[in-house]
């Protein structure tokens, strides 16, 4: 199982306010699938319009990355800049 | 609308152009003469990007009619270097990174040269007020002011 942490705002929309969810996944694409299955709309939402931070590194287009039980995974909005 | 046939001197060379009475010297330099080093930032005399010398006076070319240049001497950024030898200000601006996007740079250089041509020992305050009409949004002016002061020091030392 990997632990995915959502912002409180995202959690209110998709997980009834639960900010830490656990899913079975070995990489990010599996994680998206599992999140979508457990919380319809969430996996899709993250894939299309959010970033994921794994162990402190913010990834705007995560997909191939490996994840383990020890990974610290956070979902956050996309960041651009001027 | 009859066009005026204007004969003038631009960067030391005789130049002719046809212009409509309402066209500014800035329009003429950029569109008729092809000297696009003089920039348009506001067209109201507030930014200084279009600074040129007109008969030895620093002016905003957006506030001069093209017809007014008849019989006068216009100096633009394109005439600042002597062939392949850059003017000391141009060289110093490069060495001290006194430009970022470079859009205000021609106007700043023309204005700074006008200052140093009459005063080669300006104070920081004098440089800042002299250049107050040349807006720069990139540099915070720090390196511009230093480059002008350092060029003046070099010119005094030379």
């Amino acid at each position, binding site marked *: 199982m990997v632990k995915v942490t959502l912002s409180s705002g995202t959690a209110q929309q998709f997980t009834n306010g639960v900010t830490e969810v656990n899913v079975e996944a070995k990489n990010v694409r599996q994680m998206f699938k599992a999140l979508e299955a457990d919380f319809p709309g969430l996996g899709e939402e993250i894939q299309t*319009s959010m970033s994921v931070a794994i162990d402190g590194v913010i990834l705007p*287009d995560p997909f191939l990355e490996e994840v383990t039980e020890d990974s610290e995974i956070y979902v956050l909005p996309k960041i651009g800049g*001027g | 609308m009859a066009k005026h046939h204007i004969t003038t001197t631009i960067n030391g060379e005789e130049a002719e152009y046809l212009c409509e009475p309402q066209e500014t010297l800035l329009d003429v330099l950029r569109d008729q003469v092809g000297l696009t080093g003089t920039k348009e930032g506001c067209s109201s005399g507030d930014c200084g990007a279009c600074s040129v010398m007109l008969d030895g006076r620093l002016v905003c070319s957006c506030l001069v009619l093209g017809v007014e240049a008849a019989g006068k001497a216009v100096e633009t950024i394109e005439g600042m270097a002597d062939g392949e030898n850059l003017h000391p200000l141009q060289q110093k601006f490069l060495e001290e990174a006194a430009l970022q996007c470079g859009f205000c740079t021609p106007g700043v250089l023309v204005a700074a040269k006008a200052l140093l041509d009459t005063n080669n020992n300006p104070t920081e305050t004098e440089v800042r007020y002299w250049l107050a009409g040349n807006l720069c949004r990139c540099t*915070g002016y720090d*390196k511009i002011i230093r480059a002008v002061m350092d060029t003046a020091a070099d010119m005094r030392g030379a």
Partner: protein
Amino acid sequence: MNEQPKQYKWVGTRAIRPDGVDKVTGRAMYGADLALPGMVEGKVVRSPHAHARIISIDTSKAEALKGVTAVITAADMPVADSKPVASGEAMINFKDLANNVLAREKALYEGQAVAAVAATTAAIAEKAAALVVVNYEVLPHVIDVMEAIKEDAPVLHDDMFTGGVKPKPEKASNVANRVEFALGDAEAGFAAADLVIERKFTTEPVHQGYIEPHAVVADMNPDGKVDVFCSSQGHFMVRAFCSQLLHIEMSKIKVTAAEIGGGFGGKTTVYLEPLAIMLSRKSGRPVRMTMSREEVFRGSGATSGAAMTIKMGATKDGKITGAYAELYLQAGAFPGSPVGPAAMTAFAPYDLDNVKVVGFDVVSNRQKVVAYRAPGAPISEYGVESVVDELASELGIDPIEIRTINAAKEGTQAAYGVKFGTIGFQETLDAAKATEHFKTPLGPNQGRGVASGFWFNIGGESCAGIRVNEDGSISLTEGSPDIGGSRASMALMAAETLGVDYHSIKPSVVDTDAIGYHFVTGGSRVTFATGMAVVEASKAAIDELRARAAKVWDVDVDGVVWEDGHAKPASTNVGDFEPMSLAEIAKVANKTGGPISGHADINAKGAGPAFGTHICDVEVDPDTGHVTVLRYTAVQDAGRAIHPAYVEGQIQGGAVQGIGWALNEEYIYDKNGRLENAGFLDYRVPVASDLPMIDAIIVEVPNPTHPFGVRGVGEVPIIPPLAAVSNAVAAATGVRFNQLPLSPPTILAGIAASK
């Protein structure tokens, strides 16, 4: 100032930029400098109303004018779906973008484009624009963010329901979205505090104020191919957006990046480009369009005005126990204010256990805001840094000390979730504290303010090509529009990696046909991401150079190493060969397999977060309220300064933009929602005589994910000045204003009210 560490020969030097001579001699070509044979001039017809339904548009009189080659309205543009589409890294709602470029049903702000014309001269185009008759039904408008969220406010989009809340609201409103980030329990944090301070703040809308107005030349061939030359922060962005808006295949659009006369985020979207393409298609001729300064202020760029509440609690010894922020940011006519990053950055400099941030994205009748240097962060961090300052002064703790007590460090979890890796916030505080400036006594009516700032920095898509020419010189290609000297940094990193003379490298920003996709020049990403691509491309070229030397020597490539610009045998076992220089290998390239090059196409990850700490001294004239900035020091962790002079330049320029935001810049609207100060006369950006020197101090805590340690520098420096100036004014006057700008009338009124 850290100069280059010993191990580097080029990185860390103050080399002269490769595009410098063009820029000091007037040769450099900016957006408006290109003239093509047969070119016509385009002009935009703009809404005079802040909010109005477009009943009809009659273009017949304009079309009949001699010299007019084309007139277009939204009817000439494909209708886009209202659905966010991934376009590069950003999510773009192309229906909104299309409406912003050319209004279809409603004009949502004064200055919104409603039609465009092209004619043989600019004067005729202007006349034709005046002949386009638009019949409007004027609607009630709303500008201010707190007015816009009121129950009875005029609603801009009757199909917009607040996102980010559950259940979905039943009524349309101007609140486009709600975001929330929380960690721990903020209320419990306040309960544990000895001192709790809660303040409301407002900031006014401001503009990026780039000196070059938007400009484009577009030329569409009868076969559907389009050439675009324009000033932007991303020619790949221009290609992508025009392709989506106009339904033209990307491969048919070639965009060439003109030199760009400043952007600061304001040139990360399109305005004129799609119009110029449409006008060119209709005219059958190249079209040039340039905005006037007034159009720039009314119809482009700009960022949010905002209102916020900041609440923070601390123990007697200065430990912050709880923090709460509620942020309302103007998005302008369409959703998409930077409230997300504003919320995420608000408390990011601090190691907090209990924090909650709520943010609202609010539409109102202004131009759609676009990125401005660290979008959102200057606003929220202004409020937070003001309250931190007030906590410090109430608790009798030095302002740098209270930040040190609470500073985020490696392993600190930010409120938005992420745990920081190696960061250099404390180092900026230490450097600030060590300055002579911080210790210098002040005179009467003078005050000193300190504030810090945080920005994420980003990576993203970048590409680079290294071509080793026959004579050993290097052609370096990349695709990030160079807004402040990045070509110099690219060449320095290539020179360092390849081990060749910086001057033998010519870097170019090439067109969209010549290289792969690049995300925009923004987010402080270019030196980091494109720099990473340049290093990887250089390494690829080195591998090829080693292989060629191996062929010459007839040894295995593993037996060849690359050192100091030369191929050398890895050991004496390989053989006794004279090292071959890059130029020598280049000379025999044709014999060893043909031209030599290296390429990299990457999506750079691992951008390094950056922090800055600024110190500002002001003097306030107690009788006129005029503020003079006496002295300014800006400290920033750059990770590694590839070109220290341009890093300092970013810091100085950003600081001064922040000072302008703090003191005098603001959008002023009349009662009809029309901008009253659409020019540099009354939109008061700082001028040279307003300022002292800006002492830039570079701290280098390298970013471990970048080959040279680069973090990115462009955005952080605009964040601290808002509070640094405001805190200094508070110290000088004894009055806390909690609103920007601190214009003389505001200050005098505040002083009078405090008496």
